[in-house]
């Protein structure tokens, strides 16, 4: 059995929800049908909506089921932009950061090329921290042109936490809606949508124990979101498509479990993470912990190793049965230097030597031990192999 330390990519299905999920798969009925079968399927969906609402601390009407994080981000970013622009054609600026996930960056770039948007990329420190003073100054001069701000809550590569409430505090002064991609945050750090000041937020089930293919976009009751995907309008008219009661069930149950167990899981993960970082730095003293001393989600451990190639480390660890990631965007199998690290001002060679180890609810002490046992060999080999061209 492989040692799985890539929870930021996807997590194992929580065993607690398998039985109910399988049972729900066998329940006949379209949740939007009026008859009894439909109502029974609807029941499961609405139970799940309650669970998600409770877990993210929002009103149940604010939970819109989607296929996952990417769809949620698209619906929110494009929807907020187009609604703001429709009200005032001068509002075409989207403020975001180069360290966002592709599901956050690419919708903005599409708005630029297709909808006349202007992206403003926030300055980012070498540890990935966005410059809030710059944001404040920018808004004091240009607020009337800004359609929305989109910033992820936890960075999926580095684990860095964005101070979301500080962002919304500034933005709310100018009544600018803020969206946050909370895919890497929900289930791992405490989140309250109600207290966050956000207008929209994306979560994805498979990052906290639900199956791939389900997520939610949380849309505040007072958020103005244009419709960008058209059809039956099942989810508040904003998201269309037949609801899946088994997937909704799984999302709800996994969200409830994640929220309930969060303090305990986070304690355990933090302890493991400290041991891993310490162990790695003993073997590779020149390794750089990417987010430095900045606050982060402990379960995402991201290092860069000077003179090593991340794909060498990944290969050698994989050969030893340990699954980790280089953390960089992997476009259908073609390697790219991480755009996140590049946005943080790293050189390509520095970005190349990156490794992300991400822990989760199912991580055990034995996983940590296995990683630390395999690491010296992998590091030595990757160091020997160096970087191509050097």
């Amino acid at each position: 059995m492989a040692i799985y330390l890539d929870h930021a990519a996807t997590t194992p299905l929580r065993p607690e929800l398998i039985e109910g999920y399988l049972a729900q798969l066998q329940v006949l009925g379209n949740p939007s049908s009026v008859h009894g079968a439909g109502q029974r399927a609807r029941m499961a969906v609405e139970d799940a909506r309650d669970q998600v609402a409770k877990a993210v601390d929002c009103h149940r009407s604010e939970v819109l089921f989607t296929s996952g994080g990417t769809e949620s981000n698209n619906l929110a970013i494009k929807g907020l932009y187009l609604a703001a622009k429709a009200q005032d054609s001068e509002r075409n600026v989207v403020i975001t950061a180069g360290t966002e996930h592709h599901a956050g960056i690419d919708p903005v770039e599409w708005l630029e090329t297709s909808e006349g948007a202007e992206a403003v990329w926030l300055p980012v420190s070498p540890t990935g921290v966005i410059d809030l003073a710059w944001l404040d100054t920018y808004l004091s001069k240009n607020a009337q042109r800004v359609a929305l701000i989109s910033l992820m809550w936890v960075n999926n590569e580095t684990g860095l936490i964005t101070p979301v409430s500080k962002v919304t505090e500034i933005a709310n002064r100018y009544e600018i809606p803020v969206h946050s991609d909370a895919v890497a945050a929900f289930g791992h750090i405490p989140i309250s949508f109600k207290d966050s000041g956000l207008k929209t937020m994306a979560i994805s089930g498979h990052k906290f124990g639900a199956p791939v293919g389900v997520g939610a976009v949380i849309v505040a009751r007072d958020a103005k979101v244009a419709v960008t995907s058209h059809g039956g309008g099942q989810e508040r008219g904003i998201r269309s498509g037949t609801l899946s009661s088994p997937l909704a069930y799984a999302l709800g149950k996994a969200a409830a479990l994640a929220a309930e167990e969060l303090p305990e899981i986070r304690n355990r993960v933090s302890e493991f993470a400290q041991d891993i970082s310490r162990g790695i730095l003993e073997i590779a003293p020149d390794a750089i912990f990417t987010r430095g001393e900045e606050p982060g989600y402990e379960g995402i451990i991201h290092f860069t190793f000077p003179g090593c190639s991340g794909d060498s480390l990944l290969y050698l660890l994989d050969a030893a049965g340990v699954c980790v990631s280089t953390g960089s965007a992997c476009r259908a199998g073609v390697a790219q230097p991480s755009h996140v690290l590049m946005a943080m001002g790293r050189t390509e060679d520095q970005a190349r030597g990156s490794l992300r180890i991400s822990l989760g609810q199912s991580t055990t002490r034995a996983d940590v031990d296995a990683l630390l046992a395999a690491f010296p060999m992998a590091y030595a080999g990757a160091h020997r192999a160096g970087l191509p061209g050097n």
Partner: protein
Amino acid sequence: MKVLAAMSGGVDSAVAAARAVEAGHEVVGVHLALSRNSGTLRTGSRGCCTIEDSMDAQRAANVLGIPYYVWDFSEKFKTDVVDDFIAEYQAGRTPNPCMRCNERIKFAALLEKALALGFDAVCTGHYASLLTDESGNLELHRSNEMAKDQSYVLGVLTADQLKHSMFPLGAAASKDDIRREANERGLSVANKPDSYDICFIPEGDTQDWLSEKVGKAPGQIVDRSGNVLGDHEGTHEFTVGQRKGLSIGRPAADGKPRYVLEIRPKTNTVVVGPQAALAISEMIGVKYTWCGVAPENTNDWTNVHVQVRAHGDAIEAEFRISDGQMEIRVNEPLLGVAPGQTAVLYLGTRVLGQTTIDRTISAVPVFAEAESGISA
């Protein structure tokens, strides 16, 4: 052995990997990402470097049940192969990028990385045979399948590189057999078209691509006596032996077509003349390597066969090393050989070594080619 199978996404490298697995080796498939801006789908007759090709390679690895990774060599490929290709054209030479890729990427950067990571050999789908002589030395030989033989592009390999190379298709009877074998093994690439074009030139038009990269640099087209015959828009648009695309208003006195004989980057001129004047008698290369054990005596002329392009014939020749340069004399005049091309020496089917041609000596004196002179 631990074998790294370089998998382009084509049928040859997939079958080569399959044969390595079957031979009992511990095989890992690796696809080289050679471009940062890979296209999504394969177009025309390029056989690699798109995401579709990477997915094809991954699918083949899955079917073979071997691990698969994509390694990024795009930066090194750009400097060592693409930029070199452009620089060579700008210097009036005709490079072979596949050869450079073998020399600097596949059997250098990739092989070095593989060895450092604990592999024993790199396996590719080249059609060539590795044989062992009586003393146990490795020799590179032509493939049994002469129509697909790729020993020429492997001529740059040295004894050390041969030790860590594996060409499981060497004894292939034919490409059809390889396709049949791929089909039997359930490999989806069994009927994927062959690739012919240079992988980094998407539209397959080298001259257009080069013009985009280096821009226009107008100059003159002259004959070997120095008479100006016309203008050109950049020497990179021409290759020795080229006939098409010469904008010469005045026809030759003999009415026969004229060919590019030489490119002189220093004066930005293209020299043209009759086909017969393309004939060369000797080639000289400054840099040369031996493919396996070096010959004992290189001071005296030795009989060999020489091949100057991937799908050209090998012709009788003799070579020697003199003043640190390789001199190759052909027994009969050879047409259209350009500096930058690689001359690969063969002893029978065995690859002896190679040199990049730096200059050639014409078999036809200039005076014989006056306007009314020799004809093709």
